[in-house]
């Protein structure tokens, strides 16, 4: 039930709701409980109608590069 999915912020309205894109599907989520500044183009982790986390893109890219390096080692 603690399911979360990553989506890209497409727009943010004056009530602090964002439209996010998840692989072509659009959903509206509330930004009231996220604790970081987010903007259009950012990826956020969403759960039960709320964005709960801003995906750390640099961290994710670095980690994935490390995993891929292991393959070549």
């Amino acid at each position, binding site marked *: *039930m*603690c*399911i*979360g*999915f*990553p989506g*890209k912020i497409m727009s943010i309205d004056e009530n602090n709701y964002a439209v996010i894109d*998840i*692989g072509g599907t659009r959903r509206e989520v*509330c930004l*009231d*409980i*996220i*604790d970081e500044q987010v903007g259009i183009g950012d*990826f956020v*982790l969403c*759960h*039960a*109608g*709320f964005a*709960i*986390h801003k*995906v*750390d*893109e640099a*961290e*994710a890219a670095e*980690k*994935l590069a490390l*995993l*891929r390096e*292991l*393959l070549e080692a």
Partner: protein
Amino acid sequence: MKYIDEYRDGAIAEHLRERIEQQARRIGRAVTLMEVCGSHTYAIGHFGIRKILPESVRLISGPGCPVCVTSGRDVETALLLAGRKKVIFTTFGDMLRVPGTGGGSLAKLRAEGADIRVVASTLEAVEIAKGNPSKEVVFMGIGFETTSPTVAAMVKTCTGRGIGNFSVFSVHKVIPPAIRVLLDDPELAIDGFICPGHVSTIIGFAGYADIPARGKAAVITGFEPVDILEGISMILAQIINGAYAIENQYTRAVKPQGNTRAMELLEEVFTRAPAEWRGLGIIPGSGLVFRDVFSSFNALARFDVPILETTDIMGCMCGSILRGVATPHDCPLFRHACNPQNPIGPCMVSREGTCSTYYKCH
């Protein structure tokens, strides 16, 4: 899809599987790892993780499915609230078919005419309240730390906007006290915990300190196959080195301090209280109840609900399965009397219940 597909890369997964095999050989004995998140239970079954691991690495499921750990008493209380006149009862869909101890369920009650509506978020429940001012809208507040801040946020919104016909039946629970109960269970010998990903998005590393202190591995793990295999490999590395710590595999979604804003909201609206868990009994400090300031949102007080006497469902082993001391195969009802079409216990109802996952994947 970004942040999903990359973590389903077969070549990386195979590499991690080989690493796990080498690590398991080095350890040279059987190890037991427990996941305490229903989404992990589902993902491990769905992606066939158990089938590709060496035999000596045993994965067991713990009390990680919120619907499953909801006590029979709380299910009966939900039925009582949902049956009240003028009430629109709103709930996440998982809860609908969970059987009460008397054989009823929200789905059956709805078929008999009660106004019970499935929502995907508290936002929808509040919209229903706004659209039905002459009705009382009760939301079944279920879930761990991932979910409870969203309920806290909506309660605050309702306060701000003067929405008075919305209340919550809170059976919210927090994970760390349950982990402590599992650590103390003499029947369980767990070598490491696959710690929940999205609960940790909110709580961070806080709450897991007892695990390494008791000489067990703890790795916060994501939900894609590469995440889960890497998490297992990190646990095995801790066991090999005898160096136990809280480690984070799921760095793209979990910060050490968690989501501080969500935690502040949760603490502002709720306070800790004892809660009854199916299988684990009453655990002090593991439930969330409204603070006095927000007590008008407490559905139990608003509708003056009595404390119900309930009994266990005859023959159902969900309790032992949730503690990790039995698997669905140990239950005489599994696959026969109890199946997804006719679930007897809650672990067969929820998509992420251990019995439901075993039914489909094992």
